[in-house]
Structures are given as C-alpha cells and as structure tokens.
C-alpha cells in the first residue's frame, strides 16, 4: 500500500503544473486561439520567478513575477494572433523558440552561472505547508500523499473548480465559448470578440505563469535551461485528450502524470507477463494516446469550431 501512496504523491506533484498549463490552454483554445505557446509562457514564467524570488527572497514575489511574465508572452501571442491576424501556429512555435533562446542568454548575463539562475534558499521557495500534527502526517504515507504538498498544489485544485465554473456557468464563460465557436454570431450579438480573446490570453498567461513558477519555486529551486522540457506540449496533449473540457483535461493530466510517476517506480523491474518495459515506451504513452484519440479511435475530439481562424469583422 505504501508504494501506492508514494506513486499517488508523485502523481500529484507532477500533475500540478500540467493541470495549470492545460487549463491555461483551455481558455486560449476555447476562445478560438491555438495555443502552442504554452511551453514558452511556462518557461518565461519559470525564469522570471527564479530571478525575482532570488532577488527579493520571497516565493510570493517570484509567483507574481512568473504570472506577469506569462501574461506578457500571452499578450505577445495575442497581439500577433488577434491584433495582426497572424498565423497562430507559427506564432506559438516562434514564441517558444524565442523564450528558449532568450532565457539562458539573460541568465548568463545576469548571474554568470552558465544559463541557469542561482539556487534559491528555503525562504524563497514554497515548502510543504506545516499543518498541526505535522509529524503524524510525515509518518503516514496516505496522509502525506494528500496533505503533504506545498500551497500551489492546493491552489491548483481550487483553480480547477473555479475554471469549470467560469467556463460553464459564468457570463464570461458563455462569451468565451461563443467567441470560440462562432465569432461572427457573437459579434452580431454585441460581444467584443477581440476583447474576449485578449482576456482569455491574459488568463492563459497567468495560469501558465503559476505553472512555470511552480517548477522553480516548488520543484527545482533554480531556473535551468529549457526546464519545461515539453511540459507545455504535454499539457496541450492533455487538453486535447480531455476534448477541451476542464475536468476531462485534468483527468488527462493525472493520467499522464501517473505514467510519469510509475515509470520511475518501474525502472528496471520486470512486470508479470510482459517482462520489463523500456522507460522510453512509458514516456511515449501520453503522446501515443493523444494521437490515437485524435485519430478518432477513442471517441471523437472536436475542437472549438473557430480555432485558428483570425476574426475579421464582417461588414
């Protein structure tokens, strides 16, 4: 049983940034803007969070800086895709490359540690929250798996609830979905399409900001070159896997995180019937599943109708 809970513990830790980034992508894509830039938003946020948390010695300042950086990249994506009606796919790819190049250059210039930032002290990181009976919690695997995380994990849980409420029950959510499905009808109904899309981008940037900050402030304790390592694309895969719905996307993230957690456990050990599976195969599972799903072999994933199409107001 203990191993079950340690896998659960690892799953929750790996899933948190994925969940945040997938929900970020949900806002962007539901508003009709393809979001390949999740990776870049997260990486920029991780870098900003590392720099500011180091200088101010405060994780909260780092979190705020991460969110600001995420929003900045998101707005750049917005200006290109919404303002200039540019190709959203290309913009996403370009932004990811730019951030992947810019962050180590700045890190080297500012900290002279070869493309990474100095390691943060404990005071500048998010640690597991101290509950009463902390010793009892640390001693018991099930309690540790559920209550032994840092504050951002619980924040992410709250975000899931809020996002699904906003998307389905709030006025903004209705507008968001309308703009992503049929912008011309939404426009005729008096909704400011571009404004809604810019707002969706900002929310996407802020959520990616938390995800990127989490990587630094709760996991590694420093910015490392290309530290997102495809997590943005993995989150996008989870979003598609969840057919652009919040709870399903979260399940996708948990599933992908679970494969990651179990891969570390399975290393080298043989399974009954199949024998030992190479790590690489387990690593590839999320991507293969997404391809299979997109191919329509596991239900149909239908994207928001207006996704990828710039909105040009009809006269």
């Amino acid at each position, binding site marked *: 049983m203990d191993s079950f809970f340690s896998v659960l513990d690892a799953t929750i830790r790996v899933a948190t940034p994925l969940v945040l980034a997938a929900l970020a992508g949900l806002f962007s894509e539901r508003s009709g803007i393809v979001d390949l830039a999740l990776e870049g938003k997260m990486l920029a946020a991780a870098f900003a969070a590392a720099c500011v948390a180091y200088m101010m010695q405060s994780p909260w300042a780092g979190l705020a800086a991460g969110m600001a950086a995420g929003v900045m990249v998101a707005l750049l994506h917005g200006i*290109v895709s919404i303002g200039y009606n540019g190709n959203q796919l290309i913009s996403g790819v370009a932004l990811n490359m730019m951030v992947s190049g*810019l962050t180590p250059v700045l890190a*080297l210039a500012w900290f002279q540690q070869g493309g990474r930032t100095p390691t943060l002290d404990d005071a500048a990181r998010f640690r597991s929250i101290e509950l009463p009976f902390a010793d009892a919690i640390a001693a018991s695997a099930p309690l540790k798996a559920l209550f032994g995380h840092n504050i951002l994990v619980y924040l992410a849980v709250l975000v899931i609830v809020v996002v699904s409420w906003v998307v389905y029950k709030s006025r903004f959510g209705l507008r968001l979905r309308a703009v992503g499905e049929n912008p011309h009808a939404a426009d005729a109904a008096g909704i400011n399409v571009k404004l809604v899309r810019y707002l969706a981008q900002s929310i996407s940037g802020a959520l990616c900001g938390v995800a990127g900050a989490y990587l630094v402030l709760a996991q590694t304790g420093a910015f490392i070159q290309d530290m997102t390592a495809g997590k943005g694309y993995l989150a996008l895969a989870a979003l*598609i896997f969840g057919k652009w719905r919040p709870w399903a996307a979260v399940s996708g993230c948990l599933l992908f995180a679970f494969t990651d957690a179990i891969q570390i456990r399975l290393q080298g050990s043989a399974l009954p019937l199949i024998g030992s599976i190479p790590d690489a195969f387990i690593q590839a599972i999320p991507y293969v599943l997404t*391809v299979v799903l997109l191919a329509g072999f596991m239900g149909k994933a239908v994207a928001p109708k207006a996704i990828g199409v710039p909105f040009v107001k009809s006269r």
Partner: protein
Amino acid sequence: MSQPSNLPRWATLWLMPVLNLFAALLVSGLVITLIGEDPVECLQLMINGAFGYPEGIGYTLFYTTSFIFTGLAVAAAFHAGLFNIGGEGQMYLAGLGVTLVCLGLDFLPGWVVIPLALLASMVFGAAWAFIPGYLQAKRGSHIVVTTIMFNFIASALMTWLLVDKLIMPGSQTPATRLFAESAWIPMLHELAANLGIELPQTPLNATFFLALISLVVFYLMVWRSRWGYTLRTVGLNEKAARYAGMPVSKVIIVAMCFSGALAGLAAVNELLGSTHRMNLAFTNGIGFVGIAVALMGRNHPFGILLSALLFGALTQGGLDLSFERPAITHEMIILTQGLIILFCGALENLFQTPLALAFKQMTKR
C-alpha cells in the same frame, strides 16, 4: 497562406521579407545591447565568421545543406496547406534508416552503400510523415498536433534504440560505432584535392550538390508537373480541388511523404557527411530551423536557397561569435531564429498596411 495584397509583386517578394528580417535583427540587437555588448560589432564578427575566411565559408555551406533539405520539407507540406512541424522527428527516424543500412552493409563498396543509405533516409523519413499525413487525410486529426506528438515519440524511440540496442558495445556514450569509410560521403576538400585544388578541411561534402539538385527538382515538381498543380490546388482551396475531382486525401498523404523524405535527406548530410556515426539528438533543432527557412524563403526554392544560406551563416557566424564574445551563446541564435519565424511567418502583415499606404501615396503623385 498569405492574404491577397495590393502591393506590387516585387515588394511582396523582396521588400517585405527584407523588412521583416531587419525587424527581427533589430530586436536581437536590442537584446545584445541589453546584455552589454555592441550589436554592430557582433554583426561584423558574425559576418566575418560566416564568410570572412575559407573554413568559415565551408562550415556555413555545410549548415546550409541541411537547412535546404528541412526548408524544402516544410515548404512541400505548406504547398498542400499543411504545417509540418515534424521535420525534426522525420529527420531523426531517417537517421535510423541510414544507420541501419550502414551498420548492416558497410562492408560493401561505397557505390552500393551510399545510394542504399540515401534511399533508406528518404523511406524512413517519409514513413514517419506518412502516419500523420494518413491520419489527417482519412481521420481528420490535426497535422500540427500529430506531428508534434510524433517528434516526442521519435525522440523516445531513438533514445531507447541508441541507449539499449544500437550503442557501440563496451561504450558508455549513447552513440553507434563509426561507419566504415566506404559509407562516408566524400568531403569537398577531398574532391577538390583530386582536381589539384587545395581547400581547407570542413565537413562540407558532396551532399551539398544533392541539395542544389533537390532545389531544382522541387521547382520542377511543384510548378512544372501535373502533380504539383494538384498539390498547389489542394493547398489553396481544398473544396475547389475536391469539386474538380482531385484525389485530395491522396495528395495530402503523398505531400507529407514527399516532405518527410526531404527532411530525411538532412540526416544524410549530418551522418554520412560529417559525424559518420549516429549519436543522441544529432538533429539538433535543424528540423525546426526548416520552418524559419521555408517561411523566410516564401516556400520557393530560390528563396529557400537564400534563406538557408542566411541561417547557415547565422549558425556558423554565431558559433564564431560565441568564441569571441562568450556572453553571446548559441542560444542567442535560437532567439534570432525565433524572431525571424515570428516576423516572417506570423507578423507578415506588420509592414503590409503601412507599405500599401506608402505605395498609394507614391502612385497618386
């Protein structure tokens, strides 16, 4: 991909890319200033590093060779209206094809092994592109997402093969054994030495000529053949193509295979031309640079030649620059590539409206 413009043709073809490139370089220059270096001096060092001496030129043309292939690969898919981000994975898998042929058959003479390896690179690259193409054409799954996923799958697969299966016995680094010399594609300095001309030693090899030939073949296939006509029709208006009775699904699948095969040839330049063994991540982002090359070159072979040369010079000049100015690392070049993709690919409308206004003013007078 581009919208109808009211600019003269030469302005769309020449002035806009140059302006976009200039804007991208300007932003790079700002970043260089921000980290306390002199952008003008850096540009001079870079140009000198890329074209200032014979070795530099050799390396520039070596990088250009790979970029021509991946650029053509992206362009081939673009002409069918598809955005193939999978060049990196297709090139990786093509490397597997080359490696398998070489490891298995390199006791044979070069004139047997090299053509077989070329063929294998194209077949493996095409096969890795075929699946996303098939899924797009027949099952409607989005090519961009599928090719991204295929890049990750390729990377996982190749890591496993290199670490567990193809690694040189007794070695710790995940790389294959050196291929036998018969499978090496002749270097340009060796060919020149046979003719009595002395050239400096660089990895520039005969694959460069294959790249030039590919440019011409690409032009003939896309603009001068019946197949190219259907390809471009499908890309411009899929509905119209379907209405005209063109086999749209087939065109999409074949275009992706064509694209994958071209990306595959870049692996030949790297593996048989330079490293002579396969190692982890030998693709090194070349597939992604292909996107920038195609966008900057407006998907035309001549444009691709020029922009591949530009990116070859950026890579070689950037490497030289990073020796002279350690603050400006290879990542600075990645930033510049990203900026060029942004300005040439996504922000191509940035200068269109002001330019159109300017031309209107001029014609009024």
